[in-house]
């Protein structure tokens, strides 16, 4: 949309002139996308003429039902909202991402995006487009495909003349009046349309149409019409304080009740105009060497959405997923994007096969008269975590690296030494990660386990096809990297105090750069204590390095294994045993912790008992980090995207989102 005009004018477009409007829009090379009838429903599709519009059709929508009826009325926009939303055109269901190059690397694919004009956009849908802008353009990494599509789209809004029983735009503050965000605004009357221009582009179109001014009666009729819609909808979900009430109810019994009805079919998220979650799928050629990847719509209701390596799943129950969806839409979206994630279009109600009405659920879980409860997590990430700006990385920008060394650490874990001259990668900081691409394989996020002057080390455990392929690499193999990504460990906050490092299993990998950094500037820190846990002696990482550290006099290092065996003469048990009765006190201690979630929870509790403040207990979380920049939605945790806002968090930042199953 172009810049807003200061004084919109109101013209009148006779009904017979609708094709003139479409032709004028098309004259700029745009394709026209608007409402039409397909498969018994109104959908948005490319249309050629006004004849394709749903003239005379009305939709009767209710929870779980949708019916079209036809009458002799000449109106073209009396159908409520279509099944599909504009995100099909601004954030398409499938977008090619990468392909294999001739030299075995991975490169981004750029797709041609035609200019479009959207006709029939409702007020709630304009709000949805605005929310998409906040998510896909204004984040730390703009979505290139979305930005191109949106920048070229001209928006022709049509104010609602009728309300569906599922509408609640009034509660969400998004309609029914169109007050901005469009280039042209139409209000449909029996004889034609009042037309207002809200942007320079809209004014230009209006000027070319050379329409007469609308009469005062026509303008008043249009205003009365939309006022009637507002009155008909009322305020079904009082939204003042809704975000706070909802986030204060994570244990409400209603989550389980609604989960018994919810089929987790994903309909609600697919018809939602603001849901933006995606996954990346990789298609391999028969040679198994080359392939392409594409981004497709996904849903937080699918079982696999919260799944990570090793078949672990952070949201295994439908109740967890419903809570995640609803809480995100109406509460934590504010933390992430400064707005609600719902525009009140009602599609999720209409197209839910079992008729779950989100308005009823909100009123049951977070009723307006509910007493405010303590918010179980802080409202925003703590300031000052990252001491400097992080490199900006386009979502599909890969740089090449080469495997220069392979070290087998354990039976299933390998450290790859990668050489690269990419300045961003060489400027990586402890705690950051990279997305690692091999042709024809999924792209896993891998923590950096050493930052060298000529490259990076990645320590990878083979837990699936992609990581198995990576650990099978040999020196000379090309590898494509995207990064560095994520917030690093805040080492500088430990200057002048004691440091405790606690690692469980492969959790030592992202902590190794911390150890390196500490010993490069050992004078900055007081006592340094390292506690290492592993399943068995054979699962220990960097054994020689850690043994060498044991010889130093300026640190304490202890290790323990879950299961010893005859060759093991060290401690047996869990890692917290190493420091639960340690003589040191934690008042001046900063802790850096990485391992399985349960191990980190126990470690955080034990450290707290030793006096280490939650603000100084830092963890790095594992989640399904598919995009690495917070736009695919997989790694959401409370108000955070783990890849974008983490993966390093303090215990204070996480609050109880870290300790409750299913978050």
């Amino acid at each position: 949309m172009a810049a807003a005009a200061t004084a919109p004018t109101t013209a009148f477009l006779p009904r017979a002139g609708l094709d003139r409007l479409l032709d004028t829009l098309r004259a700029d090379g745009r394709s026209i996308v608007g409402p039409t009838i397909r498969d018994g429903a109104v959908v948005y599709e490319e249309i050629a003429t006004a004849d394709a519009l749903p003239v005379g059709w009305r939709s009767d929508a209710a929870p779980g039902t949708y019916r079209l009826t036809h009458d002799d009325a000449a109106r073209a926009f009396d159908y409520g909202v279509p099944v599909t939303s504009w995100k099909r055109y601004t954030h398409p269901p499938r977008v090619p991402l990468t392909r294999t190059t001739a030299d075995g690397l991975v490169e981004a694919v750029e797709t041609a995006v035609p200019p479009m004009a959207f006709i029939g956009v409702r007020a709630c849908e304009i709000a949805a487009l605005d929310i998409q802008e906040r998510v896909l353009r204004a984040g730390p990494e703009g979505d290139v495909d979305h930005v191109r599509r949106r920048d070229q789209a001209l928006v022709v809004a049509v104010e609602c003349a009728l309300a569906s029983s599922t509408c609640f735009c009034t509660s969400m503050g998004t309609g029914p009046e169109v007050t901005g965000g469009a280039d042209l605004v139409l209000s449909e009357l029996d004889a034609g349309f009042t037309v207002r221009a809200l942007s320079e582009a809209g004014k230009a179109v209006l000027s070319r149409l050379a329409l007469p001014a609308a009469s005062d009666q026509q303008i008043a009729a249009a205003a009365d019409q939309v006022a009637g819609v507002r009155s008909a909808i009322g305020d079904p979900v009082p939204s003042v304080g809704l975000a706070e009430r909802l986030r204060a109810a994570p244990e409400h019994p209603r989550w389980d009740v609604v989960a018994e009805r919810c089929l987790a079919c994903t309909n609600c998220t697919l018809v939602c105009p603001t849901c933006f979650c995606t996954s990346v799928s990789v298609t391999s050629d028969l040679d198994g060497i080359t392939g392409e990847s594409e981004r497709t719509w996904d849903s937080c209701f699918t079982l696999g959405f919260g799944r990570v390596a090793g078949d672990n799943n952070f949201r295994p129950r439908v109740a967890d997923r419903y809570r995640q969806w609803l809480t995100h839409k109406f509460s934590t979206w504010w933390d992430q994007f400064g707005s609600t994630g719902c525009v009140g279009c009602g599609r999720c109600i209409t197209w839910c096969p079992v008729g779950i009405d989100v308005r009823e659920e909100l009123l049951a879980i977070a009723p307006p008269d509910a007493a405010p409860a303590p918010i179980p997590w802080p409202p925003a990430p703590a300031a000052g975590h990252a001491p400097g700006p992080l490199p900006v990385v386009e979502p599909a920008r890969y740089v090449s690296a080469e495997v220069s060394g392979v070290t087998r650490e354990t039976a299933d874990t390998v450290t790859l030494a990668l050489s690269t001259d990419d300045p961003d990668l060489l400027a990586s900081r402890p705690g950051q990660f990279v997305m690692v691409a091999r042709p024809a394989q999924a792209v896993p996020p891998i923590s950096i386990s050493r930052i060298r002057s000529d490259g990076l080390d990645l320590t990878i455990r083979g837990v699936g096809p992609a990581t198995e392929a990576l650990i099978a690499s040999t020196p000379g193999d090309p590898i494509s990297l995207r990064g560095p990504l994520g917030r690093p460990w805040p080492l500088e906050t430990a200057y002048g105090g004691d440091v405790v490092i606690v690692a469980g299993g492969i959790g030592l990998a992202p902590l190794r750069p911390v150890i390196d950094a500490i010993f490069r500037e050992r004078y900055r820190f007081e006592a340094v204590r390292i506690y290492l846990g592993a399943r068995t002696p054979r699962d220990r990482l960097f054994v020689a390095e850690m043994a060498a550290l044991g010889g130093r006099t300026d640190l304490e290092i202890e290790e323990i294994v879950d299961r010893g065996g005859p060759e093991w003469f060290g401690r047996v048990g869990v890692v917290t045993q190493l420091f639960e009765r340690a003589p040191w006190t934690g008042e001046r201690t900063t802790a850096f912790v990485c391992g399985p979630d349960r191990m980190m929870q126990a470690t955080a509790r034990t450290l707290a008992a030793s006096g280490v403040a939650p603000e100084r207990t830092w963890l790095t979380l594992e989640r399904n980090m598919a995009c690495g920049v917070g736009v695919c939605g997989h790694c959401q945790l409370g108000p955070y995207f783990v890849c974008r806002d983490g993966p390093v968090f303090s215990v204070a930042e996480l609050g109880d989102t870290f300790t409750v199953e299913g978050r």
Partner: protein
Amino acid sequence: MRDPATTARSALIARYLPDLSPRQRQTLALIARDERPTVGTYLMREGRPTLDLGVIIEGRLAVRDRIGADDVTLMTLDPGDVFGWSAVLDGISTASIVADQGARVLLFDGVALREAMEADKSLALLVCRRLLEAVARRLDATRMLARDVYAFRGS
């Protein structure tokens, strides 16, 4: 008149049960033995009556269980750890306790301890609270291990 060894044991007891009164510490000191078992010494054997409640003062002990033909170390215990709580219940040892490196332990005779606890409910409460803390910690550790086995195959 207390002998120096009893006084020393009383001081050790105070380290681990600081809430005891001097008289209660004296009671426990009189039924305690301060021992330094050599590596490999079985302090308790799985399936046998638990005769003593123990606290590790120095070094390390191993909790072992018979699995097949082998004694497998399930866990090692460090200074401050309590073992042999079945002695308070007149029970049977569910695992063996074996001395590891440089172990020094305080052992409380189970029969005498039970009598002392019967006679002094406040002592019983303090001892039981200390035991419950130890049991809870051990259960936490066991739960972590179980979760490691069942839930976190990927980490």
